[in-house]
């Protein structure tokens, strides 16, 4: 029942977003160079990308290809050195101040002195919601990630997968239309990861949020995404954008299908073209 309530709210919100029908993210000729003691590092080089409302976009590439950096630029955690980027039609900083996105980090980044419930309520406290609303939302989103009954536990009492689910509930709790996820399941074992992938897919279908998802797992990217952005390092750049329209009600079994294999093959080809493994 709680899930249905969430769905209705989210549907209303996404409906409004679709009416605007404007790109959520527009990136033009974006470059970012870190000046280090060993000389400049070209983290991103002339990147162009458009993300539309409701898309599930994966950034895939080997480490050092700038996929996390690009996500951090979108989140206004880094600044580009050249080029233009707009989030919801405004600058990333304005979008951040507007609390336009929820960010899920590689590690759960839960505050160890807060219970699970109070961790989920953290952004709500900062946004000044009243106590009843905070408790209500925490309960709703913990239920959504199947963590009902763990409200009063401290993070160390939970497994790694459960902690990451708490951090997802925390990112969802203030109901942003845009979800930025930086290898959220990277540190988890494959069984937990498969399970969370399915849950995330269901969540995305239900809520119609725009998701940007960084990963270095080809099956994960193909399974989850509606669009796959293949990136390559030195300098970090986009070498292929693959549309990926597997059936919406797919389960993990889809990974044995021919369509899945074809898309995965194209991703692999892209990665191979962009990167020589000899160096």
């Amino acid at each position: 029942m709680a899930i249905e309530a969430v769905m209705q709210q989210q549907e209303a919100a996404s409906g409004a977003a679709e009416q605007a029908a404007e790109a959520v993210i527009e990136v033009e000729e974006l470059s970012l160079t870190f000046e280090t003691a060993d000389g400049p590092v070209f983290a991103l080089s002339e990147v162009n990308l458009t993300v539309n409302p409701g898309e599930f976009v994966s950034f895939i590439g080997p480490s050092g290809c700038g996929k996390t950096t690009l996500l951090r630029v979108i989140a206004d955690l880094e600044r580009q050195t050249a080029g233009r980027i707009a989030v919801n039609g405004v600058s990333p900083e304005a979008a951040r101040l507007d609390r336009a996105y929820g960010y899920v980090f590689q590690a759960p980044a839960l505050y160890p002195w807060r219970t699970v419930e109070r961790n989920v309520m953290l952004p709500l406290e900062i946004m000044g919601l009243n106590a009843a609303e905070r408790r209500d939302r925490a309960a709703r989103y913990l239920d959504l990630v199947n963590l009902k009954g763990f409200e009063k536990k401290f993070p160390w009492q939970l497994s790694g997968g459960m902690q990451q689910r708490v951090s997802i509930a925390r990112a969802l709790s203030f109901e942003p239309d845009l979800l930025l996820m930086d290898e959220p399941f990277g540190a988890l074992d494959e069984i937990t990861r498969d399970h969370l992938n399915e849950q995330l897919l269901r969540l995305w279908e239900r809520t119609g949020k725009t998701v940007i998802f960084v990963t270095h797992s080809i099956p994960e990217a193909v399974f989850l995404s509606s669009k796959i952005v293949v990136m390559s390092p030195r300098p970090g750049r986009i070498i292929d954008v693959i549309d990926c329209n597997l059936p919406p009600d797919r389960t993990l079994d889809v990974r044995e299908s021919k369509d899945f294999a074809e898309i995965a093959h194209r991703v692999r080809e892209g990665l191979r073209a962009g990167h020589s493994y000899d160096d």
Partner: protein
Amino acid sequence: MTIEALNPPHASAPGLLSRVFAGRTGPLTVVCLALLVVWYLGAVWLNAPILIDGYERRDVDWTFSQLAEDAMAMERPILPAPHQVVVELDKSILGYKITSKRSLIYHAWVTLSSTLLGFAMGVVLGILLAVGIVHVNTLDRSLLPWVIASQTIPILAIAPMIIVVLGNIGFTGLVPKALISMYLCFFPVTIGMVKGLRSPDPLQMDLMRTYSANTAQMFWKLRWPSSVPFLFASLKVAIAISLVGAIVGELPTGAQAGIGARLLVGSYYGQTVQIWAALLTAAAMAGLLVAAAGGVEKLALRRMGARP
């Protein structure tokens, strides 16, 4: 060979002795007993020359057991025997009313009150300095060297100056002593809290940034809770040296009351037994204060979800 033979079961019920020594009680008792033995031997050894001198002047024969007995019953020994100190403690703690000037409890209370006032002021000052240093770049560069330099000045040299100057402008009694305590104990708090307030990792800071939290929210929801373990480590050091500060503050004033005054009066009149009694009282106070700080720490950290 059977498996049981390879893995013999653990000895069923461990004996009393091994249980005592498994914990802290056993080793602690052994150390205390060893100290007592050393103390007794030291008392006889240090007091012997005076006694032997006396025997020879009075031209009496003496035996070693006679010497040992006399060495532990002198009125003004170089080093009193432990039981003499215990008798003195018993007399001055239980023998007088608490309000009496001869009661050690009275003196301990005088010192304790300035210790606690100085500690409170020192903790507040220490935390405020740390907050300033962490948040304001200029303070970071300008203040920290002075904070460190302040501790290189010997407190024994500056304490009389503080007392004299404050006495001249009308502050006497509790406040000047508390100020000396504060001077000593703000330092570990500042150092610990600067480290504590800077302890959140980049990920935790980034998270706050994605919520566009302001500086105050960043402080109360992230920096402050992260610094609590550092705060308590500092408090345990600070409360012990705050007591030292209060005692030092009582020395140059010729204070009428307090542990420091007891020490001073004792040394004027060569009352070594009284000095040792005051010393042991001060040590016991320090132990209790640190233990109290540790108790509060445990409660606070448990409420903050520390692993048991």
